[in-house]
């Protein structure tokens, strides 16, 4: 009979309307901004620079190797390396700017960074009224503490920390072994001396 298909469909609609009063599955709307969905741990938006310790500028992990600048697909990272008074390159960025209006949040900078210095943030309410300089973020605004990193991405941050600690331990061991070898060379064995 003509119209049965429509009636059958309307039954579905009615089921959804009634269901929305008691079943959360049928009414998933979230009353943003009063209520917010908790973002997943992996959720990424814009990059930030991780620093250790208390001083944001001294503790920056970035050594300005410029790998991220080279790999960034839309080329939104801009780095100038710091130089000391003798004009010698220092492993520290003098300028580190990211243009958030160009950044496409792909996360490749964080992926290629060999020093775990740049990571992906999960902030998403960045609307501003300044069209040009407001979204060109410098290293002071980019720098965020390792503590903050642990807060937003606990699992990933723990992994990074243990990896860095392991690297440091290996480096120390290597340095120690090197020092020991050097000392052994400098002081000839006692048996040959006598």
């Amino acid at each position, binding site marked *: 009979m*003509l119209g049965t*298909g*429509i009636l059958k469909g309307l*039954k579905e*609609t009615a089921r959804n309307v009634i269901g929305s009063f008691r079943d959360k599955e049928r009414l998933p709307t979230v009353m943003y901004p009063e209520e917010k969905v908790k973002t997943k*741990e992996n959720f*990424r938006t814009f990059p930030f620079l991780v620093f250790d310790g208390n001083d944001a500028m001294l503790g920056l992990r970035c050594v300005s190797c410029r790998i991220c600048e080279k790999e960034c*697909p839309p080329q939104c990272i801009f780095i100038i390396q710091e130089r000391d008074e003798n004009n010698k390159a220092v492993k520290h960025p003098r300028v580190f700017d990211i243009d958030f209006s160009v950044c496409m949040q792909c996360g490749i900078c964080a992926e290629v960074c060999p020093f775990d210095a740049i990571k992906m943030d999960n902030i998403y309410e960045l609307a501003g009224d300044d069209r040009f300089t407001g979204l060109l973020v410098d290293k002071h605004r980019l720098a965020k503490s390792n503590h903050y990193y642990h807060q937003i991405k606990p699992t990933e941050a723990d992994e990074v920390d243990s990896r860095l600690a392991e690297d440091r331990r290996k480096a120390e061991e290597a340095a120690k072994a090197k020092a020991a070898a050097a000392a052994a060379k400098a002081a000839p064995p006692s048996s040959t001396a006598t």
Partner: protein
Amino acid sequence: MIPGVTIEEKTDPLQGQILEVSMGPHHPSTHGVFRMDVKLDGERIVSLKPVFGYLHRNHEKIAEDVSYLGSIPYTDRLDYLCSLTNNWAYCLAVEKLTGFEVPERAEYIRVIVGELTRLVNHTCLMGFFVQDLGAMGTPLMYAFREREKILDLFEGLTGARMMCNYMRFGGVRCDLPSGWIDEVKKVVAAYPRFLDEFESLLTQNEILIARSQGVGVLSKELAINAGITGPCLRACGVGHDLRKVDAYSIYSRFDFRVPIGAHGDCYDRFMIRLLEMRESLKILDQAIAALPAGPIMDPKAKSRGVRPKAGEAYGRIEAPKGELGFYLISEGGPSPYRYRVRPPSLINLTVLEDMCLGGTVADAIAILGSIDIVLGEVDR
């Protein structure tokens, strides 16, 4: 007179006039910025010229400038509803060039996310299609409600809901977070209920049947000659699915069937997608059950600084919209010498005029909706 409308005199004034209407580029049902120059004899279409390129972003030329890795996020933006299958096709082409081998676990993860992407795309399409037919809001919102659950899964795994940027040459970027596979199981288990609901909501609806059955019929011969792929081709009765034909990745291990239509009209194209989702769920069930442990990246693969040997490769997969292919020519440099995308949406769009001729303006909207285009992919 309405702007964009011209009237052409016919030779015999008693026969009336031919009306030329420019539909678009900002038409709500053109799925993006797409224009159709339509010539109308009364309500009937006598000629239709698709005009596109409004969303051109120079994707192919940019890819020839950036590194191989740097192109992956750009491929996300081709067909922005199914970024993961775009990644997959591109990685497949690069893997053919470099010879990286994808470990077992990564293959399974790829199949799982690929089939989830197919669910996302087809769910969206069904909503959009009935929206184009005039069922404003309700079915589309039901479809989006379900799609949202899968997007949440993508967010948990890849960090982004739509621009996933997940696959890498020789594997995938990161392993599954703990508990993720259980969430997938939940979504997959609940999905058939939604499909049943959607089916009883619409498939027997007299209005839908009147608007789509016998509308936009595409013949088998024309479909094959024009290179149509994907659900549009299968709706004409051609059993061509790259998952079966090429059996790329590990699709030969799964037991699934390829639904085939009989008439090649809009209704068939709509139903094919519904049936395909059920097959996708079957594949998902099998893939989740068989997911092995192990590495997710080929140990000799690297993502940064890939410099394949000189040569060329064509990687293609069955994307939700049809055959998505990437053709790459390498000269041994850090970026490809030539990079070419074979987008299913664009090629499926080439038969639009043949399907629309003789139909009404309202039919043209329905036909365009049933082809399933995404302008990000058509214009690139």
